[in-house]
């Protein structure tokens, strides 16, 4: 199942919709569930990593400068990171902005 899931026709499915390629859940774009997104203000960030720990998607990564950012392919916009951030470095904004 190398095609993006949305492109599969019923004929492309394996028997019983078995997933024969281990680990391909990483191809699933949970980001398209999102209606809001986190914005990181690095000037307030103390690099504590709490957002990274709490993100239920595990989609927050640390960059080369030590700041944290969300991978929007997976980020569902749940807002947990913003809620848990000590310094209010993360704000959640509606997707259309």
């Amino acid at each position, binding site marked *: 199942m190398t095609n993006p899931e949305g492109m599969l*026709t019923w004929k492309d*499915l394996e028997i019983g*919709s078995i*997933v*024969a390629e281990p680990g391909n859940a990483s191809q699933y774009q949970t980001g398209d569930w999102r209606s809001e997104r986190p914005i990181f203000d690095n000037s307030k960030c103390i690099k504590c990593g709490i957002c990274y720990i709490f993100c239920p998607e595990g989609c927050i990564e640390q960059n080369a400068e030590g700041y944290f950012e969300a991978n929007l392919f997976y980020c569902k916009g749940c807002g947990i990171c913003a809620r848990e951030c000590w310094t209010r470095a993360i704000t959640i904004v509606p997707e259309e902005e």
Partner: protein
Amino acid sequence: MATKMGIEVSVAIGEAVRLANADVIAAYPITPQTHIVEHLAELVANGELDAQYIPVESEHSAMSACLGASAVGARTFTATAGQGLELMHEVLYVASSMRLPVIMTVANRALSAPLSVWGDHSDVMAVRDVGWIQIFTENGQEVVDNVLCAFRIGEDRRVLLPVMIHLDGFHLSHVIEPILFPEQSEVDQFLPPNQYPLPLDPSKPVSMGDFGPPIIYFETKWAQEVNLEAAREVILQCWNEFGKTFQRYYSPVECYHSEDAKVLLLTMGSFSETAMMAIDKMRRDGREVGLIRLRLWRPFPFGEIRQAVKNAEVLIVLDRALSFGGPGGPVCSEVKSALYGEDKKPRVIGFVGGLGGRDITPAGFEEIINRGIEISQKGSDQEFEIFGVRE
């Protein structure tokens, strides 16, 4: 050389599963199915069948254990009835949509309340849409033969679907009948080993039963429907092959004196043999009546039904289940829908009878046929007729 013996049908099913060399049996005892799994437990305990017997705490667990066993490629069998089938309900859908060829005999039983262990088809009709192949049987020989066929059909690479064999509780499950058992070597030749193409195997990992968001769920359901439809061909081939090997032939719709009959009765399960007695008597009396027996319930044999009834004027359908607040009997309603678009079709009259183990005698079937003819002539303001309820 086949061996003929007088044997209780439930025990005979156990013997058929032994001949099929099942690998896993997971079951929970429930009347009137108990003797089937009891005999299998004995066979396994005595070392006569080299299989894992998993005793579980409920039918829900029985079917769940069967899924796991089938998923590793084991030849898997279970049996249930009535309330047990209901308790399995949600897992039945999982078996068919994951395409796991679990084979199950169902000793058809009425549903509570009031509590009834006796036979009817309420349990069958409640699982009509679960995506399993479903076959009705009329006597012990047919059950044994179709258990063997079920493994071959279900495990066929082109099918890979679970199969239910329906037999009437008590009327069939608990009677002793003369049954022919094929030799082990004949069965081995007829029934190749189960080779599930994508089994759970640590050396080649796969994920089964994943979630299906809106973007893919519908595709999976359509694939399932196309697959069940495609199974028709394999079912016919299997029955044909079985007939050539063992000289007993089966077909989706069985006809009895129906070719020239103006009036046809349609039944399923063990009642068909009693109905034949009524047809014989009425024929001797010079009446142009015949019988149609529905064997294949899913996938529904639309073409065969149309063909079998096309020359009749009246078709009387006897259901042993009641769709409350609906059209009466589920089988009748499907037969009507199969015929709706036909230019030439019989008038279809639906009866519901024989609920909760209530017998219908040959005289009773004669009465049903006569009443059906009367309704076809005079009409009725009822959607369907009830047979045998005391007024």
